[in-house]
């Protein structure tokens, strides 16, 4: 009996001792047959599941484009819903290959978490949602207010900085989840709900009576959102980065899901270069599908086709929500 347990502990110890492979994410993804993509637990416009479990949104499209670029099949994605708190640990531990979850690019996150931001998908900023009945027109009138905020975000620090900087007092109530935060705001525990403006509009639509609530004009922070990958795998970093840039480029050139096949046949030199139908790009080593023969269509085309919505269109902040 004892000998068995001793053997078992030795085996466990050996398991711990083996180093986790940090590089070669692309190989891991290909071997697994699908991309593991960290998204939010539900934020309309970014990553939101419908009642059938289909994910939609900008962050989700990044994942789909990546899968399309790697597998030529945008459906080969496993979406991993993560809370704000758990997202970096999931990336660090290798549970996900890329984090595409409305994450703000900050110095400390880029330098101390062992992760890299690959680019900006959306320029957001922090704002305030209040009830119209309070008759507040500016965030500067919020002295002594109670503020609901979701914990585990950059929001809490920005909030503290803003109120301190303007010599205003406030009370902060921080909740673990977005839903609880909004519920507390709705029940009147707080006067104000603060978050990134994009989220404020999304959450306002979910409230019982959206017209009774108003987003104040002040945007108190700069929140560039973007996908994140693990540090130390340059190849994977390049792939995620350039799939994103290819989508931005495609949009600038007017390439959409509808016309991509037509545009790919175009004779325009810039389009040819973008689609890689000219000689230089086709031999580029940055292609995520190098090694997978049989598919002559360059990866940028599949990436463009797979995403229903375009990146830049979402970047124009819509005040209507």
């Amino acid at each position, binding site marked *: 009996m004892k000998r068995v347990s001793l053997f078992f502990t030795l085996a466990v110890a050996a398991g711990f001792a083996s180093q986790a492979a940090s590089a070669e994410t692309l190989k891991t993804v290909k071997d697994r047959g699908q991309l593991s993509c960290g998204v939010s637990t539900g934020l309309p416009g970014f990553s939101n599941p419908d009642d059938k479990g289909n994910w939609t949104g900008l962050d989700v499209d990044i994942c789909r484009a990546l899968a399309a670029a790697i597998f030529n099949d945008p459906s080969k994605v496993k979406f991993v819903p993560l809370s704000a*708190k758990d997202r970096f640990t999931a990336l660090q531990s290798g549970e996900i290959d890329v984090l595409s979850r409305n994450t703000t690019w900050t110095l400390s996150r880029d330098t101390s978490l062992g992760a890299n931001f690959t680019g900006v998908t959306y320029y957001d900023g922090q704002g305030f949602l209040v009830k119209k009945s309070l008759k507040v027109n500016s965030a500067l009138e919020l002295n*002594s207010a109670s503020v609901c905020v979701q914990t585990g975000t950059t929001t809490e620090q920005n909030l503290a900085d803003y109120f301190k900087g303007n010599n205003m007092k406030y009370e902060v109530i921080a*909740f673990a989840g977005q839903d609880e935060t909004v519920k*507390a705001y709705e029940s009147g525990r707080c006067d104000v709900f603060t978050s990134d403006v994009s989220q404020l509009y999304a959450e306002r639509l979910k409230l019982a009576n959206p017209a009774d609530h108003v987003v104040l004009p002040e945007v108190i922070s700069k929140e560039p959102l973007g996908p994140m990958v693990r540090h130390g795998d340059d190849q994977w970093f390049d792939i995620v980065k350039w799939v994103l840039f290819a989508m931005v480029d495609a949009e600038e050139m007017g390439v959409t899901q509808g016309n991509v096949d037509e545009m790919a046949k175009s004779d325009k030199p810039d389009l040819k270069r973008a689609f890689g139908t000219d000689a230089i790009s086709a031999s580029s080593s940055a292609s995520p599908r190098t090694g997978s023969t049989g598919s002559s269509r360059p990866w940028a085309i599949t990436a463009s086709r797979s995403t229903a919505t375009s990146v830049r269109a979402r970047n124009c902040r819509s005040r209507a929500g």
Partner: protein
Amino acid sequence: MTTAPRTPPPQFVFRLKRALGGRAGWGGLALQIMFAAVLVWIAFEIVANARANLETQRIISGFGFLRNNAGFDVSQSLVPYSGSDSYAWVFLVGLLNTILVSVIGIFFATVIGFFVALGRLSPNWLMARIAGGYVELIRNLPLLFQLLFWYLAVLGALPGPRQSIPLFGSFLSNRGLVIPRLVPEAGLAPCALALAAAIVIALGLRHYARRLLFENGRAMTIWPYVMGLLIGLPLVSALVFGAPFSLEVPVLKGFNFSGGTRVIPEFVALLVALSTYTAAFIAEIVRAGILSVHRGQMEAGLSLGLSRGSVLRLIVVPQALRVILPPLTNQYLNLTKNSSLAVSIGYPDLVSVFAGTALSQTGQAIEILAMTMGVYLLLSLVTSAIMSFYGWRLGRSLGA
């Protein structure tokens, strides 16, 4: 009623020893040392491996972050705190909030639990049924559900601060209970002295009354004198030297009340949920303990002419405590650990502010989670040490 503790049969001890791998002589010792060495090696490997992986991924590790500015605010703090304090200070703020709700929760859970147990054992049919219903209802519903119920359904239904309910200079609203704050005045020192004097005299009186009881067999009712002393002396001092405190009454200013002391609804919801939930388990433990004391004890006490309450207090409960204490300790530990559910209703406990906000701001998951786990471990060990000490003293006084 001291019965000698039953020693387990030697056959059983022998079997147990063999099952655990105990062997006589040098062979056994060598095995023990080998086993210990393997454990140490595993621990070393885990730490070394984590370090190496952090290094290769360029994740900054170590406890240097504790000196950095936290930069966020907290809704309730027992020590002065602002956003410009360090993460180490945030740790303390969260820790104190956890201890606060645990200690007060343990107190209320014990009191409610004892009364529910006595109610369940009471010969009064209605009372016994109500107490039984309480236990069955509360202990069979998930704690998180009860927490959300108290927070969202009960306290959330209170009116906003502008329509708050006035209660004797206090105000009750969905922002919590704002009570007038006591501001120390010049009369505080003489008043404190008067109170101390009253306590000393009261203790002397108690001593005298006990001697009277034991030597002359004459019972003396002293509590009216004691109450008179405790209230009267400070009152006289207040009349002579001036009031010890002045009241700072809260006023509605802007969105919230300013002035006064505020009890936040998150704290109340957490406290109520934790105390009532744990009380249901404690009630069953206490009931089991009391039932474990032989009926004859109760009957003997009653036939001596003691009241039911006195029999319970002097005879039954002290004997029952020996059975109650170990599982009661478990419940105290559970309550402390369950307090980490606070994060779901926004009470700033250790898990919420330190393992939540501080973790996501710094990304130092290993360090912060290790510290947090260490705290819960330490709190649990301290609680069980206190309870063991109490049990040891109790055992000595019962002569067991």
